């Protein structure tokens, strides 16, 4: 399945047109860090002096436990689809943070469990097995928390890269939903046994407020907002058109679509209400500028989900969350623009190619593909180029080494002599993006002139 996601964070233009609230990645990380410090401070202020191994173990367990309890809500918040984060940090980066943070959080939870068992066993002069039994059976809510940590380990294992490749996306997705249950199960033991909360009502209030706040944000942006949009726009599939052997365009219509104020370069999370597709909302970029009452996406058929898109029938109801992303005209700072696409990464650039304001000669599209059959929408691109007086270059063939690569600095400069004066919009698969970045930088294009969007599978 193809997902088009955003990497670069820019305050940029909001979908609604005006300047809107967003948070830069650095600021978001700083906020997360400050929260973690506050959590450690909570431990610090009610801990006096540590004596011996038992205290060290128990308190290391307390710190890791507090941090795990905090990290888990941060992970949820990252996936909350709050526009502040989606627009500021970017969907792609949020997903990467979530994946990295997920592994870290599971490790913290496991460390917490083992350290507490070991620490209590040392202070009670029993063995670890006996202490585990005591903790699970006689400490309030610890049984639930034990189930929770085991679930987290299972979910973490299922999400690990190796397992993820073997699992169907559907299976992984459903397994992942159990994190909500795991978090709920682990909550009560924090207050009933947590030394930092048991006798500190203020800490309990703040901690609960954090959890409730994130829950409300999740409910609002992941549930209420899409439902409201569904009621308002009543989107339906009008046409499904094969573009090549393995790409398909889906046309969607609905009411008041102009109120969405979607821009070329943005994406929606699409949920097609058929028997096999309703459960997943996948991000696909608009592959054409929005027309009155009509949106179009173009999807490369890779996984089960995208394959099922081919079988969509007109009339199928669609829920679309969005628009998301700031890979739009708002990023641009200069008159000359190079759109650099790889494979199916053409979709948002196709829309931008059509709409980016430019005088003839200022707009260039370079489309990179390994084989001619990987090029999609070629007729449309040629049509737009001749209509707008823009240039299109197709670079076809397998990647080369060093200077011989299609996207090396030398080759790019040969293609576009005044490359350095261009704003670059870059979208494609990971390898292509890395090659393009390296080539552009070497050619002397400043980093702030490169706006990129990666798509992942």
């Amino acid at each position, binding site marked *: 399945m193809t997902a088009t996601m955003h990497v670069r964070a820019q305050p940029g233009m909001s979908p609604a047109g005006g300047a809107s609230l967003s948070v830069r990645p650095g600021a978001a990380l700083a906020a997360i860090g400050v929260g973690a410090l506050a959590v450690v401070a909570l431990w610090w202020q009610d801990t006096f002096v540590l004596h011996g191994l038992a205290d060290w173990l128990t308190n*290391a367990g307390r710190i890791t436990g507090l941090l795990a309890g905090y990290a888990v809500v941060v992970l949820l918040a990252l996936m909350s689809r709050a526009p502040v984060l989606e627009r500021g940090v970017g969907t792609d980066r949020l997903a990467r943070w979530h994946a990295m943070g997920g592994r870290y959080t599971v490790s913290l939870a496991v460390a917490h469990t083992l350290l507490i068992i070991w620490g209590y066993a040392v202070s009670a002069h029993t063995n670890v097995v006996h202490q585990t039994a005591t903790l699970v059976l006689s400490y309030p809510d610890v049984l639930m928390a034990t189930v929770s940590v085991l679930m987290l380990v299972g979910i973490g294992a299922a999400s690990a890269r190796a397992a993820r490749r073997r699992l169907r996306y559907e299976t992984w997705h459903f397994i992942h939903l159990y994190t909500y249950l795991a978090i709920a199960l682990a909550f009560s033991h924090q207050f009933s046994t947590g030394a930092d909360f048991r*006798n500190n009502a203020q800490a309990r209030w703040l901690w609960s407020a954090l959890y409730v706040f994130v829950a409300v944000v999740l409910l609002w942006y992941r549930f209420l907002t899409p439902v409201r949009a569904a009621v308002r726009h009543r989107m339906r599939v009008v046409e499904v058109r094969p573009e090549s052997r393995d790409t398909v365009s889906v046309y969607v219509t609905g009411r008041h679509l102009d109120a969405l104020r979607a821009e070329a370069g943005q994406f929606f999370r699409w949920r097609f209400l058929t028997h096999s597709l309703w459960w997943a909302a996948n991000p696909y970029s608009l592959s054409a500028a929005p027309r009155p009452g009509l949106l179009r996406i173009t999807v490369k058929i890779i996984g089960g989900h995208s394959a099922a898109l081919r079988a969509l029938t007109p009339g199928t109801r669609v829920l679309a969350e969005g628009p998301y992303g700031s890979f739009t005209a708002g990023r641009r700072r200069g008159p000359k623009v190079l759109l650099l696409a790889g494979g199916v990464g053409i979709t948002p650039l196709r829309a931008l190619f059509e709409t980016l304001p430019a005088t003839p000669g200022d707009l260039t599209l370079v489309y990179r593909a390994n084989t001619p059959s990987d090029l999609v929408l070629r007729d449309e691109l040629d049509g737009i180029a001749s209509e707008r007086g823009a240039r299109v270059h197709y670079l076809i063939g397998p990647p080369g080494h060093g200077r011989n690569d299609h996207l090396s600095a030398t080759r790019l400069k040969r293609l576009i002599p005044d490359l350095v004066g261009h704003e670059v919009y870059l979208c494609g698969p990971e390898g292509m993006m890395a090659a393009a970045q390296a080539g552009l930088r070497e050619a002397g294009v400043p980093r702030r002139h490169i706006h990129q969007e990666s798509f992942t599978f």
Partner: protein
Amino acid sequence: MKRVLLSVTGTVLGVVALLSFKSHGQAVIGGALPSATLPAAAGGATSSGASQSTSAPPTPGAGTRATSTAASATKTYLGTAVQTQYGVVQVKVTVAGTKITNVAFAQLTAFDGRSQEINSQAAPILLQETLSAQSAQIDTVSGASYTTDGYVQSLQSALDQAGIQ
């Protein structure tokens, strides 16, 4: 991989640093240790400053030892030092015949400020309960179950030595 290594070592070093910062200094001992005396034996419940400094809590079961006082029928028994999750509790009872006339803490340590606060609230209640119950069958002080458990255990060991049921 590099990032994983970095975050793991970073976390471990951070936690170790935090813990070692907290390892300097003395265990908190509640200043003058509280005690309570039966009104008949002396003039009301009083506090006496039997401050005992211990840098490390003794291991449970170490301090079982009875000491006789000069008074003829009055004997003082020292209970076991019991380590709870939050500190060490050790009780000293003075018995005249089969009557508990005085009960005091030989040790009441807390590893953190919160526990110290709880201890200082619970201690007088536990002592009074002991004098009125004249046994180790006393109610748990709410919010101080660990201290109560430790107290009862130490008290029971002292009463066992005294031969009081």
